[in-house]
């Protein structure tokens, strides 16, 4: 009840209680009228859309399911007119598509790596799962080492591996060998480490006032490297499987995951460098980014295969897969750098000022305030880059590594399965696999984006 007077005055005497909203447009017809046919243009568009669906979907289903062949042991099964997808072909080649030429008896190692990967990754992806720090350590530090040892078999001759060549004082240390562990190498390693720590201290002292932090960081880095080398030097009794034998989905995932994990910090560093006040640092970063962004990945991999050995000291001949990994990582890093730069530009100056006013140092400010926000902002673009990366892994075929698609192409050459539909079947299957991974990434990013969005009220 309320009082209303002639002159427009009004006083409410009784407060209204909230009511539930009225239900309108109930039922399918109401919904359709509102969403599909609210105007003539809309109706036309709706019908066009439906026509498109009718045009594409039925033939696809016919090929993939209705007319498809499901059993058989060679090409004979999939011959004949009007035959759809030849699934026995995929069944026969399935193991190869997953493991490549990885020795059949050792495939449990790959399975174990896959399994551990999933076990560690899932809790990392579930945002509400606790122990993120431990989990990250396990996934980003322990897992790669373990996976490396499992997949290659470990027992890598450290002094002949990459590390053998960066010893600064090799001449002094000589090359004395004592039962298994090369004394000369370790002597060399320790001396190099000591020298680097000293240099870091000096530079840190000069540049940042205190060299202790820099020295400690360098020492840690060397300790980690040493531990890694030692670990790789140990013989676990696993058969050595060289990377040429890897293949299929295994290689695709190795390249994609390594690319994703390593390009991220690199890209962030490059983005910060590009926004730096220091002209030389900025220029170097700009050149790096624009170069990698401007050339096709295919030529980068070409470069890695044919030209890289020319630029390295004689005898240093990095593994083909390693070259591809480095190429992919640098390439993606350049893209990530541009994306992150966009994010950094979007952070209002007030956030920097707020952080500075609280007395945070530059690195604390970046780590705690700016980057978390900037990265959240650009998640969609980052995921775009990762999706591109995942699909671009196919290009490693150029360096004679059979990734998933390469393995599929090799399977096409088997005369036992040469049929008119083999190619389409293979591509349909590969398409589905790629789609599952990329779609997964795209949806997950959407989920994270929504979850991390704290800007909305209520």
């Amino acid at each position: 009840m309320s009082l209303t007077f002639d002159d427009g005055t009004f006083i409410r005497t009784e407060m209204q209680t909230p009511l539930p909203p009225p239900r309108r447009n109930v039922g399918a017809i109401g919904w359709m009228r509102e969403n599909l046919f609210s105007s003539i243009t809309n109706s036309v568009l709706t019908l066009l859309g439906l026509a498109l669906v009718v045009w594409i979907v039925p033939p696809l289903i016919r090929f993939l399911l209705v007319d498809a062949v499901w059993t058989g042991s060679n090409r004979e099964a999939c011959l004949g007119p009007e035959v759809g997808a030849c699934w026995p072909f995929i069944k026969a080649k399935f193991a190869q598509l997953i493991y490549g030429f990885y020795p059949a008896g050792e495939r449990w190692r790959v399975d174990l790596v896959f399994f551990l990967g999933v076990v560690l990754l899932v809790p990392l992806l579930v945002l509400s799962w606790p122990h993120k720090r431990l989990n990250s350590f396990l996934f980003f530090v322990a897992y790669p080492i373990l996976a490396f040892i499992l997949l290659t078999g470990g027992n890598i001759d450290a002094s002949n591996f990459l590390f053998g060549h960066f010893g600064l004082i090799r001449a002094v240390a000589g090359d004395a060998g004592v039962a298994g562990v090369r004394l000369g190498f370790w002597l060399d390693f320790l001396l190099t480490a000591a020298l680097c720590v000293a240099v870091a201290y000096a530079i840190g002292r000069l540049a940042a006032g205190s060299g202790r932090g820099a020295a400690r960081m360098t020492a840690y880095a060397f300790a980690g490297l040493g531990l890694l080398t030692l670990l790789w030097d140990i013989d676990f009794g696993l058969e050595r499987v060289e990377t040429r034998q890897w293949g299929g989905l295994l290689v695709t995932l190795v390249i994609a995951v390594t690319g994703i994990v390593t390009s991220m910090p690199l890209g962030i560093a490059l983005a910060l460098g590009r926004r730096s006040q220091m002209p030389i640092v900025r220029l170097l970063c700009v050149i790096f980014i624009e170069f990698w962004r401007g050339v096709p990945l295919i030529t980068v991999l070409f470069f890695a295969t044919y030209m890289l050995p020319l630029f390295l000291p004689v005898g240093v001949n990095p593994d083909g897969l390693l070259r591809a990994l480095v190429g992919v990582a640098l390439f993606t890093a350049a893209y990530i750098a541009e994306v992150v730069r966009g994010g950094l530009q979007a952070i209002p100056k007030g956030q920097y000022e707020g952080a500075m006013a609280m007395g945070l140092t530059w690195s604390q400010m970046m780590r705690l305030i700016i980057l978390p926000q900037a990265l959240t902002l650009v998640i969609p673009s980052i995921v775009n880059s990762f999706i591109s990366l995942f699909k671009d892994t196919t290009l490693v075929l150029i360096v004679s590594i059979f990734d998933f698609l390469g393995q599929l192409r090799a399977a096409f050459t088997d005369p036992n399965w040469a049929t008119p539909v083999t190619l389409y079947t293979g591509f349909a299957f590969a398409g589905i696999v790629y789609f599952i991974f990329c779609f997964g990434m795209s949806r997950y990013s959407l989920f994270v984006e929504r979850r991390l969005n704290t800007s909305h009220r209520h």
Partner: protein
Amino acid sequence: AKLDQVKAKGFIQCGVSQGLPGFSSPDDKGNWTGLDVDFCRAVAAAVFNDATKVKFTPLSAKDRFTALQSGDIDILSRNTTWTISRDTSLGLNFTGVTYYDGQGFIIRKDKKVNSALELSGASVCTQTGTTTEQNVADFFRANNMQYEVIAFATADEAVKAYDAGRCDVFTTDRSGLAAERLKLTNPDDHIVLPEIISKEPLGPVVSHGDDQWFDIVKWVLFAQVNAEELGVTSKNIDEMLKSANPEVKRLVGTEGKFGEGLGLGNEWVVQIVKLVGNYGEMYDRNVGPDTPLKLARGTNALWTKGGLQYAPPIR
């Protein structure tokens, strides 16, 4: 020496194609199969008496020679055409010819063309490779004919485009034509034209500088050809050991010590034939009429049967 290195290592590293039907392609279990692959197995059988002691490195056309030069592989058995420039300037030695090939054309029957010389104005689908494009260009130019060439990265797409009618003819090596034909919707609607527009003697290659290894690889092939010529097969090898024919005896090592001259055991041919077979068996198994490829022996028949396969005698 290479032989010692190989023995120390315990296996032979063999460079093969990344996928060429009948010559090297992975089968359902992931084992490499094919003529080129089997040849490497034969070498392994000769050296180790174990045809499985060989590892395969799939190589692209571009990095095959580098791999051999750098010592990554011991033998390159990858449908490589023997030419003078390769033999002389790359530091390589061709050890023989495992397959005499040549570039040919396939065309739809309903185009009613019987000779490649009637192809003027045609669209030609081919695969970008080492010499195919150039051969086509040379052929059409030499015969004063017009053409349009569409070069694909892989044979798979090229043959699909041909099948879809994009081109009038598809060209590649004859062995390849046989393989790709299987992927056509109606293989019987197409014929291979009689002309062969190039010579492609394909054979294994080793690098310069180790004559013993060169001899071994060379003679493994010769031994296989000789075995076929003498009728020694993997099935009758045990009986043949008892043969009285002096040629057979020399071949299977029951007379003379020719194997030791190579640095191998005297049983070397027995091992090859037992574990891999003679040349004819190897051919039939991988590309012969009973395989999907259905390639007749043709020029690859023994010289005694009108072909070109001819091996110096073991004596």
